[in-house]
């Protein structure tokens, strides 16, 4: 398999899952068994409440609008991934561009919201995601033909030694993790002891 193809697939896979799970998080609004997620409804209610718009209809409408855009965005990524897996790279690139464009539009909207609601940390977070999306597109499109080399990896003596070392360290780490877990798991429910004083 070509190195370029592996990297392109990694980029598509990451963003497809990113948006797929973001949409799922909107569909599952609360905490459930096997899903914690983030309560965006509560967040939007607080944001709009801080603006003086206490009626939940505003937060609901805004969340529905954003979620719809995210859903559309996810479909674009999904189509890009499916076309990529079918070997239709040109078509995949077109869908990926549409997806990236929708994503940066979404993060631009989020950033405007962060400014309005005065959440500077989220502004930084969304600004960074926006930058990474643009950079992902640049990397996806311009991974040059020099990266189109076939992955040449011979299972020689060096690789066998590496695998042996890896298995050895993993076994050591696993023993340590299980040992630490058995010693500290009781702290989950153990009462805290006070230290002495006057």
């Amino acid at each position, binding site marked *: 398999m070509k*190195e370029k193809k*592996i*990297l392109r697939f*990694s*980029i598509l*896979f*990451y963003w497809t*899952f*990113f948006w797929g*799970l*973001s949409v*799922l*998080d909107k569909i599952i609004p609360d*905490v*459930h*068994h*096997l*899903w*914690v*997620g*983030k*309560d965006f409804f509560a967040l939007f209610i607080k944001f709009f409440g801080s603006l003086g718009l206490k009626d939940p209809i505003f937060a609901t409408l805004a969340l529905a609008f954003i979620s719809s855009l995210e859903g559309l965005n996810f479909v674009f990524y999904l189509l890009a991934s499916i076309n990529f897996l079918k070997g239709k790279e040109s078509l995949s690139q077109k869908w990926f561009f549409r997806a990236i464009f929708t994503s940066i539009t979404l993060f631009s909207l989020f950033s405007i919201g962060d400014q309005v609601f005065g959440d500077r940390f989220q502004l930084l*977070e969304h600004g*960074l*995601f926006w930058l*990474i999306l643009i*950079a*992902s597109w640049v*990397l996806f499109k311009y*991974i040059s033909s*020099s*990266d189109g080399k076939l*992955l*040449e*990896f011979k299972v020689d003596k*060096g690789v066998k030694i*590496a*695998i042996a*070392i*890896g298995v050895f*360290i*993993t076994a*050591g*780490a*696993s023993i*340590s*993790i*299980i*040992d*630490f*877990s*058995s010693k*500290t*798991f009781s*702290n*989950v429910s153990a009462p805290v002891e006070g230290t002495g*004083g*006057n």
Partner: protein
Amino acid sequence: MKLSFAEKKIPTNELVRYSILFYWSIFWLFNIVDKIIGGSLFLWVGRDRFAQFQKFFASAGLESPAIANFALIVAAALEVFAFVFFTGALIYYLKKKNETSRAWFFIGIVLTLITFTIFSIGDHIFGDRFELLEHTLFWFLTLFSWVAFIRLDNSSETEKMVINKKQLILVSVISLMLVSTTCFSIFSYNYNFFSRRTDALVAQQVGENIYKVSFPFLGGSVVFEKTIDQFKSENPTKKINHIYTVPKPLRLKKADGLIFYIMTEDKL
């Protein structure tokens, strides 16, 4: 064994490529050490990943420690193999076997991308948006490292690390002055003010039976304990009712350390 470091002048491109390989090797090595140690020890604080994983899975309804253990072992295995392949790439690069080094580095990159992708999926499930940002940034850094590594190989850059003598002397003098000034300031501050870490504070009366205590930045829990102790001995006729900390939004960001109020009543 011919090591490329043995040459006197290394092109800047090669130095950056070494830096990339070294960074990722060290990055994963310390992550593995952190997993092996588990908790805090003398000279190692690290992060208690078991507690973090346990809390994550418990929040999703999976309370058994076996699940957190299993997830932690899978993460550790991915990190171990990423470390082994990055270190292998570094060793081959030192031996000037550039093509083999590239292949090993690529496997390390793919393992790292898989690791951060799995972590990001976990962040979505467990609702940790800050870690999602952190892992996405690392995911991107991994991709960028690969592209930078490849580009530096293709580049015809042959610039050597040579600085002329005059500039070298100037830089040395200015650096020495700045370093001396900074060190003097740091040692002086340590000598004069380190006692703030443990000294008791004076409670300032701001109202009837209300006393204010402002913490210095250096203050730790000992300051709190000593301050309460001192307050009690200085005010034997008073009985402490409540201690309130000033709500965070009322503090002037970093300009204020911790402020607390002692509410008292007269002893009968």
